[in-house]
């Protein structure tokens, strides 16, 4: 009886996920196994061409650089996000800071990216200030390379790391840091040995929330990136809209989805296995 009720209650959700999530994915998977149509679309003939194309060295190179950019970006984000979230959680004006973090979402995503051109461009804010200060004589090319992409990707995803970290750190008992100091830990040691292990779940969430969208991002490398910063997302967009190779765009998407899923599973399993170990330990004692 209970089971049936459960299914009834979750029916709307199941429907929603099926229509808007599962079916589109199945369509993409299906397209990836067909032949490319002449002007976009597909010919309904089974083919593995799209998957063979994945082993093209150029594509593999793009994949590596996407991975590199995503990993570096995630590291930067976490390095910025932990102190920011910590500061907000301890601040008396929490609401104010959270508000500041949410404000940018009121502006269109693309406009925010273009704003970076105004900041980092050859005639942009940073160059002008540096020239005025006499630090440099001629403008420096900040944009259209890997590092400008990493900078902007870091900016784009930072809130998605700060918010989950903030909610974990807010629940953290700060008197534990005093206890650590009391027992001989320096400030750094108290953070490293007490704070970080206790906010691990927040760090995990922050990594997943930032790595995944970064890995699949295409607008940022498109607008801010150069030759060295083509990302997998860019290629998907190009294959779909410019090259009109739907099966290839789909096979890349499928590959991306599979890689991300495996990554997430491995990552969360790694985290879980430690917790499991602890639980085993506890059971052993009882």
């Amino acid at each position, binding site marked *: 009886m209970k089971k049936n009720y459960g299914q009834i209650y979750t029916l709307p959700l199941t429907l929603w996920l099926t229509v808007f999530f599962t079916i589109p994915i199945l369509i993409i998977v299906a397209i990836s196994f067909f032949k490319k149509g002449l002007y976009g679309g597909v010919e309904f003939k089974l083919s593995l061409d799209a998957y063979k194309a994945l082993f093209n060295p150029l594509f593999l190179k793009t994949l590596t650089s996407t991975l590199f950019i995503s990993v570096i970006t995630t590291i930067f984000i976490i390095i910025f996000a932990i102190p920011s979230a910590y500061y907000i959680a301890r601040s008396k004006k929490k609401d104010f800071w959270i508000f500041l973090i949410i404000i940018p979402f009121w502006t269109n995503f693309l406009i925010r990216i273009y704003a970076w051109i105004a900041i980092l461009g050859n005639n942009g804010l940073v160059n002008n200030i540096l020239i005025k200060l006499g630090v440099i004589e001629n403008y420096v090319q900040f944009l259209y390379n890997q590092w400008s992409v990493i900078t902007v990707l870091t900016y784009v995803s930072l809130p998605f790391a700060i918010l989950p970290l903030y909610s974990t750190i807010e629940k953290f008992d700060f*008197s*534990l840091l*005093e*206890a650590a100091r*009391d027992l001989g*830990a320096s400030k750094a040691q108290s953070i490293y040995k007490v704070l970080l292990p206790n906010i691990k779940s927040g760090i995990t969430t922050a990594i997943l929330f930032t790595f995944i969208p970064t890995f699949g991002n295409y607008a940022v490398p498109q607008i801010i990136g150069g030759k060295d910063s083509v990302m997998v997302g860019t290629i998907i967009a190009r294959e779909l809209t410019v090259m009109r190779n739907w099966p290839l765009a789909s096979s890349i998407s499928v590959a991306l989805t599979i890689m991300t899923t495996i990554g997430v599973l491995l990552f969360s399993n790694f985290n879980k296995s430690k917790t499991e170990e602890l639980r085993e330990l506890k059971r052993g004692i009882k």
Partner: protein
Amino acid sequence: MIGGELIIDNVSKDFDSVRVLRNANLKIKPGEFFSLLGPSGCGKTTLLRIIAGFEYPTEGAVYLDGKNIINKSPNNRHVNTVFQNYALFPHLSVFENVAFSMRLKKESNEKIRKKVTEYLALVKLEEHVKKMPSQLSGGQKQRVAIARALINEPSVLLLDEPLSALDAKLRQQLLIELDAIHDEIGITFIYVTHDQQEALSVSDRIAVMDRAEILQVGTPFEIYENPANLFIANFIGETNNIKGTVKNVDDDIITIETDSFGDFKIFKDKEVSIGDTVKVTIRPEKIRISRERPTDTDLPINVLTGRIDELIYSGFQTKYYVTLDVNGVTFKVFKQHIKYFMDDTPFSWKENVLIWWYAKDSFLIEVK
């Protein structure tokens, strides 16, 4: 181990320009079990946190074994704290919690294992080494916190209401154990509590605080039997307060006149002159209750008549609230039951009785 000597030298502390600690002066002897006793919000924790290094005093200095330590960070002070909320590290087992300070010092595993086992034995927790803090009872958590603080071999151990979260029975038991640990390792204990019973039963000396100030420092006996003012008399145990004017002064007996019930006598332990307004206190357990005037004593006594208004039997004693005949003044009288089946025919509610006490058992608190 050797306990440290701690001197609090004229320490004051302001929070947002509110003074929460005013000119605190204390000299705590090596190895002493010293209690800070006072009502909530009087600044006990603040003083403790200044000693531990978590707060910086607005004025004054703190000397540990002769050296001013106020500029040392908490990790560089030879002082450890048992926190009120335990503050155990939830991600570490009992063993690792206790081993925390030794791991920081990069001691060898063998040494750590030996010493942690030793200290867990001291607090009777050998069986629980591998548990996580969330699997422990409140009393066990507090034991871990005590072992974790002691293993660092501090010369002063600070305890901030360590037992307040436990039930009465367990509190009693842990208090006795704490006292035993203190005797065994011999370091200085500074024990913060708002429970006067706790403070009286284990301390060598007590500092009574109220509203940011230290009012009196003394042994439990001195604090109870000779409180410096009315606040302390009322805060430490129960008491009866009487206000009056001095009517006559003899060699060792003062006669005091009250508005409410006439004259009474007290022992002269302070200089007074006729006409002074005084406050006197008499502890309820020092007042006797009877049906007839006592005849077997030559010592000066005070006898009043009244009626039992309220009577609370609690096993080892009965509390009587006796209202005097002359007007509405009520005296608290505690009678211990030292014999089975009461000591004589039990007094009953609304019964008319005599209450009396020896003149030397009440004492002058304030003279104006």
